[in-house]
């Protein structure tokens, strides 16, 4: 398995609070991604990074920000969590933009 960990694995928070999810890789892959997975929608890209401090938006980026200060870490922040952000969040890594993507174990987030 690709060396990808996500923390926390589960989180319950209240509406309006900030939340940060962390993705850590040991593969030295250049690309890192944050997805959310919801019933009926499948996996949708939130943000991705193509290098340290290089990030771009995906199709569902509103309400989310990201940061990547080191190759191995990619952080996803919900500035002010809303109930619509209740979801399962997956991090993925790849060597290049068209290369296979390898996923982490996921973080289950519940916003009350």
């Amino acid at each position: 398995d690709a060396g990808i960990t996500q923390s926390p694995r589960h989180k319950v928070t209240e509406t309006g609070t900030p939340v940060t999810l962390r993705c850590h890789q040991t593969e030295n892959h250049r690309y890192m991604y944050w997805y959310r997975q919801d019933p009926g929608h499948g996996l949708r890209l939130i943000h991705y990074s193509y290098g340290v401090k290089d990030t771009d938006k995906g199709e569902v980026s509103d309400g989310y920000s990201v940061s990547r200060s080191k190759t191995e870490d990619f952080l996803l922040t919900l500035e002010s969590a809303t109930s619509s952000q209740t979801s399962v969040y997956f991090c993925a890594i790849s060597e290049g933009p068209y290369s296979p993507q390898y996923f982490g174990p996921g973080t289950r987030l519940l916003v009350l």
Partner: protein
Amino acid sequence: QKEVEQDPGPLSVPEGAIVSLNCTYSNSAFQYFMWYRQYSRKGPELLMYTYSSGNKEDGRFTAQVDKSSKYISLFIRDSQPSDSATYLCAMTSSTGNQFYFGTGTSLTVIP
């Protein structure tokens, strides 16, 4: 119209059957294709990665791409109960900035 369409199933087959899972897409520029298996409450696991058209085989799994029909398939031979999972397809073009995922097909293999 969604970029990628995938029948959600559920699909239920007896052990040993040949399973066919399919995705259709609308963007003729797509040329990189992936299939994932996802067990309940786990992350997606990469099964197959193919470029352009043709077939690719790996053990009991065969991925097939028909670009003229904008249709991809994953075949599972001699299906096992351990194959029970949700299968996701994903694809992109050489000018795209993201892979587009299908919503997944739920498969149950009955012993």
